[in-house]
């Protein structure tokens, strides 16, 4: 009974060590495959992402699906009718259907106007803590009231009203409106399309595939481990 049990244990031990070695090999194989997959994904993503970044059409078939509807219509359009097109004379003139263009006063574009004459900042925009008051010791503890309004509000601290009033008058020269404010949000020249770039698609799908594959593998291996 005992000998048979011992021999059985020896047999199971050798089997388990073999299983462990096999598992180690499997892990190594898995790592190699994973590295290979990652390298492949990087290789695939690189040319596509470069093409996408440079705005170059890679020229693969079926890319039209990623174009916007208006871009598709632009392809076939003869273009915008320019103002001078109807008044040019170096062509076969057909008087009954020709028409003179409207004369418009040229207007500066809106962004240009805004850059030339920035709107003056409102009084409320000025920071409540004037820099000049930083030198005064006791006054700096007082929470700053709204400029000019401090004198009317009976605060618990005595000198607060005077300080607030002074701050109100001193604020404007401290913070003059900037001469040339930088444009806050320059409109993006090429708004990102709704349809993702093919490179993005490829990379995402590669990632999903890789994740799924690894998860599948892990689960199968985990099941094998519990059996052994």
């Amino acid at each position, binding site marked *: 009974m005992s000998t048979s049990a011992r021999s059985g244990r020896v047999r199971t031990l050798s089997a388990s060590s073999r299983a462990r070695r096999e598992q180690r090999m499997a892990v190594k194989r898995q790592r190699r495959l994973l590295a290979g997959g990652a390298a492949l994904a990087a290789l*695939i993503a690189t040319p596509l992402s470069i093409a996408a970044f440079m705005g170059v059409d890679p020229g693969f078939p079926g890319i039209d699906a990623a174009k916007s509807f208006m871009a598709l*219509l632009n392809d076939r359009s003869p273009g915008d009718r320019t103002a001078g097109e109807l008044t040019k004379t170096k062509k076969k003139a057909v008087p009954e259907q020709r028409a003179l263009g409207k004369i418009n006063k040229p207007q500066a574009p809106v962004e240009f106007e805004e850059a030339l004459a920035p709107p003056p900042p409102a009084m409320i925009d000025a920071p409540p803590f004037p820099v000049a008051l930083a030198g005064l010791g006791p006054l700096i503890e007082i929470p700053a009231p709204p400029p000019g309004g401090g004198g009317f509000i009976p605060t618990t601290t005595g000198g607060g009203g005077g300080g607030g009033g002074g701050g109100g008058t001193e604020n404007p020269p401290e913070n003059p409106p900037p001469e040339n404010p930088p444009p806050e949000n320059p409109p993006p020249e090429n708004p990102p399309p709704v*349809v993702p770039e093919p490179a993005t698609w490829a990379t995402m799908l590669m990632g999903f595939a890789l994740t799924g594959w690894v998860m599948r593998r892990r689960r199968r291996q985990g099941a094998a481990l519990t059996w052994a």
Partner: protein
Amino acid sequence: MVLAIAGLASAAAAAWTSGLVDNRSPRPTAKAKPHSWVGSDRIFITDAQNFQARAEGLLDHDVKSILNVTKRMQYGEYRWDDKNVPHGPMWVRVDLTRQIISVFRDGHEIGTAVILYGADEKETPIGAFPILAKIKDHKSITYDSAPMPYTLRLTGDGVSIHGSDVRWGRATHGCIGVPVEFAHKLFDAVSKGDQVTILSDERTA
């Protein structure tokens, strides 16, 4: 060697992804139409593309597919292809900025052409108009009985789609001029009450 593999892999990935994108669009009507129709003569429009165009305010109906016209069309040129397009509601989209008319049946584009539109002092109105009347051989009452074959009247004051000699450098008095043969096909295809949407990037209704 590595570069070759990379190129092949990227090409495969692109084809795969674009195939994915392509296959999704014609799904709703894929059962009804023969397989050969899904070819190079049409470009199918996805929901995302529809959504984008609607967000830009340049589309007011969902489009299922458009004719595959990737080259710039000449003045007086038109395309008409309603092969295998199912019957359904008609609507016409007129794009003044792009100088293009598109005729849709059941969401599929069946015809497109370069148009003429109103010069600046007599601008073509923007908006959605039902076709008020169809007149085959119309002579203009306002403009010295100028021939306006295949007139589709859109407004009460006489703005209409009609056949004219579409050439570079011409304009109309507010009407939309299309090539005469195209006007004939359009005249036969639409009926009274069908909607015509006139759009422009710069102006809004």
